[in-house]
């Protein structure tokens, strides 16, 4: 204890650590009505951490070579001590991250937390969502299974619909005319180095935005009033609120425990949920599987490409939908955040979710 105090004194005299900790933990007050949806950010941070850890462990044995990749993954699953656990945690974790990112985004949309002054928080979060999708796409190829090969072929083919540059874009993405050694090399580099560095930077910026602008109150209850918008910077304070630590961090911790329980349950009891049979055979460029389908979070995009008369129109519609979502804080600029006072938004919100789920189910069974 004495040593700890001395260490703190040493740090405090140089960095003012006590004041820093107090202003960000005990002295950092949150609104009293924060609900369970506010814990999703912490759950995601914990899952990202686990992905980094399991990813690094997988890197020890994985070989990014088309001749050896599948065999190395098979060895990880069957010969490396607890390799199966590490790999399944990584695979199931990536899917759960997509689930929690979507829930986080849905809750932010429903509570209008993307609105001014939190446009940059929303934009960086939207960027993280897209980066998560690219993480999944690049990671999907690495085991070099039939599913990896053909799903990547289909996904990169979609870029060919873009006029003028489409064909060049396919070659750029694949590193050649077809998916092969060069594709595996660049996807691997992106997955284990490029994306993690960019991702960490963006997570840092996202957290900075959250902390700097202050936590928004949940727009529910009789006491809630829309915040008056000011032109100059204003950190949203919550006098009389609850301390971030330990009152709120313990709630975060409980949700992290529950999320990990779900992750472990799927990992041990139903890992096949996220591993289709085609992922269990090595890639064969000469044998196309009958029904190659993308992962569940890409099914809406896959089906929307199929229902438009041309792939270009489908891509344009997807781009417009994603662009609209990214720019939402600049389109929906009213101060009102209570869902009960925003019937048009809530209707569009529900229709949007139903459309996405409907397209995904259609894509799954088509």
């Amino acid at each position, binding site marked *: 204890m004495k040593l700890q105090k001395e260490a703190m004194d040493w740090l405090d005299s140089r960095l003012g650590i006590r004041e820093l900790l107090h202003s960000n933990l005990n002295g950092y007050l949150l609104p*009293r009505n924060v609900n369970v949806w506010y814990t999703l950010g912490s759950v995601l941070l914990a899952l990202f951490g686990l992905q980094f850890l399991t990813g690094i462990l997988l890197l020890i044995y994985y070989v990014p070579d088309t001749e050896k990749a599948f065999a190395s993954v*098979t060895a990880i*699953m*069957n010969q490396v001590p607890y390799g*199966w656990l590490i*790999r*399944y945690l990584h695979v199931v974790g990536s899917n759960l991250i997509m689930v929690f990112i979507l829930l986080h985004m849905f809750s932010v949309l429903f509570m209008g937390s993307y609105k001014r002054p939190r446009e940059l928080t929303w934009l960086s979060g939207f960027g993280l969502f897209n980066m998560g999708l690219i993480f999944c796409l690049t990671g999907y190829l690495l085991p070099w299974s039939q599913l990896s090969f053909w799903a990547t072929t289909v996904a990169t083919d979609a870029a060919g619909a873009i006029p003028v540059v489409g064909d060049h874009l396919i070659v750029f993405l694949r590193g050649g005319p077809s998916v092969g050694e060069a594709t595996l090399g660049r996807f691997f580099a992106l997955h284990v180095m490029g994306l993690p560095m960019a991702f960490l930077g963006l997570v840092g910026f996202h957290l900075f935005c959250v902390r700097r602008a202050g936590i928004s109150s949940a727009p529910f209850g009789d006491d809630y009033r829309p915040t008056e918008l000011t032109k100059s910077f204003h950190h949203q304070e919550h006098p009389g609120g*609850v301390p971030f630590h*330990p*009152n709120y961090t*313990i*709630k975060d*911790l*409980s*949700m992290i*425990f*529950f999320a*990990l*329980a779900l992750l*472990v*349950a799927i*990992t*041990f*009891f139903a*890992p*096949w949920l996220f*591993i289709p*049979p085609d992922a*269990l*055979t090595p890639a*064969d460029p*000469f*044998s*196309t599987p009958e029904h190659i389908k993308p992962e569940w979070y890409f099914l809406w995009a896959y089906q929307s490409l199929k229902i438009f008369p041309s792939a270009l129109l489908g891509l344009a519609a997807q781009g417009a939908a994603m662009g609209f979502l990214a720019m939402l804080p600049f389109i929906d600029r009213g101060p009102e955040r209570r869902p009960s006072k925003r019937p048009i938004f809530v209707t569009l919100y529900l229709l949007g979710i139903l459309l996405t789920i409907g397209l995904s189910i259609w894509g799954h069974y088509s």
Partner: protein
Amino acid sequence: MKQVQNVCLALLCVTLMWVAPALAEDTVCIQCHAGQEGSLGEPVDQWRSSVHAANGISCHDCHGGDPTDFAMAMSPERGFIGAPDYAEVPAFCGRCHLGVMEDYLDSAHGRALESGGPQCVLCHGNHEIQMATIDLINEESCSRCHDYERATQVKQAIAATETTLQTLESSVASLHRVGIDVERIKADLFAKRNSFRRLFHTVELEKIKTQTNQFNQDLSETKQQIDDHETELGQRKVVGGIMVLLLLLGGCIALLIRRSYQAEE
């Protein structure tokens, strides 16, 4: 040495199963015959539902010829054989099913071939051929030529081993589905099944009974390997269950602590 040969043959067949299905449909044989009527077109639809089609064995694999060239597809220069005569069928099928042909030719069935005895197609069919099962030995089929009594005894002698083989194959498929590397077990089982299928083509009851016991011993070794994997999977689930419970407990405790803070607030 024989086992090594069997494993190699099994690996070759498994490789063919992966590579061939996509290629099988693209031949000029299919393109031309699919549009024809009667005996020239019917084999295409029959073949499509067959075990051969499922494993990518196409027309030219049996009938020869060039599956890529319309003009030369049926040219003897490119190895076209066409349909074999009745007595030539065992040699025709035996180009791939070597072991079975050997035992069949030594059997009472094979020795009667020249005098119109049964050959492969009579029991297995030709273009619509299905995965062989023990049900192929049935009264309707066997009593076309002789009394069913002896066939019943053969069927009884092999029934238990056949069931064991099917159970083991199903267990191997389940292990594969959860990421266990079963390639060696699969190839071993494939070779054992083929050898066993050879055996009952001899239709010699005593030989079948004696050698079936040996097969059962061999299969028990394979079963042991499968059991070991299944035991490990079971243990994993127990550990997983404990971990889930501990994590849920941790979550509940954290929530209770949160409640005590709420009371203070």
